């Protein structure tokens, strides 16, 4: 039922093809963070249309398939939630016309992919694979974000069209190289390009509908979409062309090579997907009319056959309980319809007429023959990769549907109709388009215009006549067949080479790297969070003092040194002596009671200062507070053990230095604040209105109970809370005693 939504969207997009073909653009713009030049905006052009149709079309079929496939699973509502979430993300990604919007949807797909790969979360392997995929694509996403921001800086806007319409400011900006590299990292991680390819085979832990949808037809194509989208900007840049070509060739070959000896059906498909993605990157990087046409056709072809094969692999697993090639065989007897569908898809994958895969491969060879640079090398690698694919297809077909007779636990049978509809439709379209390829020429043409403006799509046809390309195709198939004849020897050799020379273990290394990182952060945390309050405080004080020094204006030493010993000043000196003597007594005291009384002494000294300088209310309050504090302290101290000196001389000196340093800074700060300023005082308002509005002569009192009455209420609440806290702390003790 869920298939209806993507299906109807598919038809909506389909209905817009003629309009887009004419060059009409469908734009949706919503203001988002307009101050930063960010808009939540969408645009439907040829390329977006191409991908949107792919996403919704394949999506609808996958939904039908998944609806039946997931019945044996728990919590399928979550599964469909994630799947729809992903589909929305993917649609947003391919239609966004703002880099930030695109990035947001890009991350949506990464996150939903994480959830879907880890859907069987009770399996450790699934969790690890999900985490690996998330860290790689998410990390790539961050690189992409940085790259996109760098790219958009000269434009003061994140609009995609701005960059595409006028690439010069970006190309000439000093950030061109780093931005390009970061964007490429984003695209390569997403599209599983070597050396980031290893997450894709791992992602096969996901249920088969996910592999069919995300990891073959759509999400991994997001990177390709980004490259295609940016291609008009970058097509003249050597950095872009060479990077794409080199990484494309390597990935194409590495993927095909590792597919050779796999036993797991889904792993085989995953590695051929890696190879196909590499091919697409290479084709975009080759940047000719042939290659771009080939890339678009191949993208479509690949989505069709790979989604089909993943669904069939899921069916086989469901019915026989395994997807290990060694335990499968002779399935053609039990599921003839499924066999036919799979065979057709495999034909498309091998590039054999009359499937559309043949057209894709013909175009690919043509593109490689016409490649501007290193054509022969690319042709040779491409030839080998294709031959490997033919070999793998033959192995798949023979090993699963013919081959040895196996003893299955239960009798295999034809998969349910809903499990066959999706694959059947896709294969049927592949076949139909192979025979009538020009039906999609319009769609491909407008997509082509978005990638390589100024050139025209190469005409698609099944039969090119007898030429070197046909010969190449023939040789490819021949090599594949020859390899298949000697398959035992070849697989043995490949396994030997893989385990002895090409054992990259990228996935394990990735996790080792993560472990090392976690240990590092653990150590770092242990250093910063040591658990000693003194050093936390010391850090705070030193930092505060240094920051104060930084912000303090240049000190001019113009103080009044009028230490007169007459009248008031005499008493002030007396108070100062009291305070200093009391403080010293606190520090050197060997008895806690002496220390407490000396503290009270200091308090009284401060009270005297308040009295002398017109702070009458303060003095009254201070006397009361001091008295109460000392009495309370004496009561508490009575219960505590003797005063002990815990610290050594060294730490005393160190603490002393910190304390004196902080004291100096605060003293200077005080001097700075005491300078007369021309600012109007807030107090003037209180002074003026104290009597007229609040009818009180004591301004301090009036402020407390009238102007700032709510503050005082808060203060009372604090005191009440403290009292409650104290009582409960004491009561807690009594209760414990009684319970004992």
């Amino acid at each position: 039922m869920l298939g209806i939504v993507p299906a109807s969207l598919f038809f909506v997009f389909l209905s817009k093809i003629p309009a887009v073909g004419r060059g009409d653009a469908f734009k949706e713009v919503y203001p988002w963070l307009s101050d930063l030049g960010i808009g939540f905006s969408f645009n439907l052009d040829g390329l977006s249309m191409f991908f949107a149709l792919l996403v919704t079309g394949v999506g609808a079929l996958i939904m039908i398939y998944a609806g039946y496939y997931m019945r044996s699973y728990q919590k399928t509502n979550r599964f469909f939630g994630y799947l729809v979430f992903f589909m929305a993300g993917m649609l947003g990604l391919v239609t966004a016309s703002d880099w930030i919007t695109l990035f947001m949807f890009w991350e949506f797909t990464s996150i939903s992919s994480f959830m879907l790969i880890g859907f069987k979360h009770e399996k450790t392997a699934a969790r690890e694979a999900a985490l690996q995929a998330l860290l790689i694509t998410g990390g790539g996403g961050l690189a992409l974000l940085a790259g996109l921001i760098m790219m958009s800086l000269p434009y003061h806007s994140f609009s995609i069209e701005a960059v595409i319409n006028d690439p010069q400011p970006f190309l000439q900006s000093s950030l061109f190289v780093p931005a390009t590299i970061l964007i490429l990292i984003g695209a390569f991680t997403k599209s599983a390009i070597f050396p980031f390819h290893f997450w894709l085979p791992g992602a096969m832990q996901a249920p088969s509908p996910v592999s069919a949808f995300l990891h073959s037809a759509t999400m991994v194509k997001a990177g390709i979409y980004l490259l295609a989208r940016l291609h008009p900007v970058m097509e003249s840049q050597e950095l872009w062309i060479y990077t794409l070509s080199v990484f494309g060739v390597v990935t194409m070959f590495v993927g095909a090579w590792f597919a050779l000896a796999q036993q797991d059906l889904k792993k085989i498909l995953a590695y051929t997907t890696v190879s196909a993605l590499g091919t697409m990157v290479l084709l975009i990087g080759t940047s000719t009319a042939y290659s771009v046409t080939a890339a678009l056709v191949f993208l479509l072809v690949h989505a069709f056959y790979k989604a089909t094969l993943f669904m069939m692999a899921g069916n086989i697993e469901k019915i026989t309980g395994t997807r290990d090639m060694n335990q499968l065989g002779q399935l053609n007897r039990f599921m003839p319809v499924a066999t036919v569908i799979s065979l057709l898809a495999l034909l498309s994958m091998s590039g054999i007429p009359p499937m559309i895969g043949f057209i894709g491969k013909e175009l690919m060879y043509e593109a490689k023959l016409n490649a501007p640079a290193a054509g022969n090398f690319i042709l040779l690698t491409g030839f080998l990769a294709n031959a490997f694919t033919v070999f793998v297809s033959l192995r798949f077909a023979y090993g699963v549907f013919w081959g040895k007779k196996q003893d299955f636990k239960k009798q295999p049978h034809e998969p349910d109709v809903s499990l066959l509809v999706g694959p059947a439709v896709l294969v049927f379209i592949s076949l139909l388009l192979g025979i009538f390829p020009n039906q999609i020429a319009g769609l491909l043409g407008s997509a082509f215009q978005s990638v390589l403006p100024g050139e025209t799509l190469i005409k698609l046809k099944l039969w090119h006549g007898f030429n070197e390309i046909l010969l190449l195709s023939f040789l490819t198939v021949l090599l594949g067949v020859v390899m298949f004849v000697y398959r035992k020897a070849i697989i043995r050799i490949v396994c030997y080479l893989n385990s002895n020379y090409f054992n990259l273990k990228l996935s394990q290394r990735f996790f080792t790297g993560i472990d090392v990182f976690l240990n590092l952060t653990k150590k770092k945390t242990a250093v910063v969070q040591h658990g000693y309050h003194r050093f936390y405080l010391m850090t705070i004080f030193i930092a505060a003092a240094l920051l104060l020094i930084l912000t303090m204006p240049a000190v001019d030493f113009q103080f009044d040194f009028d230490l007169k010993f007459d009248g008031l000043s005499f008493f002030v000196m007396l108070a100062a002596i009291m305070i200093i003597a009391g403080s010293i007594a606190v520090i050197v005291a060997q008895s806690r009671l002496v220390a407490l009384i000396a503290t009270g002494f200091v308090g009284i000294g401060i009270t005297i200062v308040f009295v002398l300088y017109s702070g009458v209310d303060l003095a009254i309050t201070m006397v009361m507070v001091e008295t109460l504090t000392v009495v309370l302290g004496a009561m508490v101290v009575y219960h505590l053990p003797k005063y002990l000196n815990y610290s050594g001389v060294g730490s005393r000196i160190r603490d002393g230095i910190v304390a004196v340093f902080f004291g100096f800074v605060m003293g200077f700060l005080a001097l700075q604040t005491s300078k007369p300023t021309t600012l109007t005082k807030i107090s003037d308002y209180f002074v003026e209105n104290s009597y007229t509005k609040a009818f009180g002569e004591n301004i301090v009192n009036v402020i407390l109970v009238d102007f700032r009455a709510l503050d005082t209420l808060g203060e009372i609440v604090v005191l009440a809370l403290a009292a409650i806290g104290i009582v409960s702390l004491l009561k807690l003790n009594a209760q414990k005693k009684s319970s004992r």
Partner: protein
Amino acid sequence: MSLLMAILIGFLYAVSIYLLLRRSIVKLVIGILFLSYATNLMLFFTGGLTETSPAFTDIASTSEVVTASDPLPQALILTALVIGFGVAAFSMVLIYRFYKESGTVDLDELSEIEKS
């Protein structure tokens, strides 16, 4: 007298920091008391030192009370004093409880207890 006051404030801060950095929890609490002394004095000082002229307004006059000391810092300090008392009382009872529960007044030992 502002230099003397500044010296006094700096001195009180220094004493307070020194006490706060001790391992004994009793000294830590006394350090908190000193910290509020120093800060109150600093606030008082920023209001300007006015001799023998408390912030009272004359009943008759409506506006001309410029000579009186600044009432705002005093009001702030008054609040701070009371809150400071609440904090002091609470922390004293807290160290009492702390000692009863843990049997030590050494804060480093507390870290060890926490770790083990």
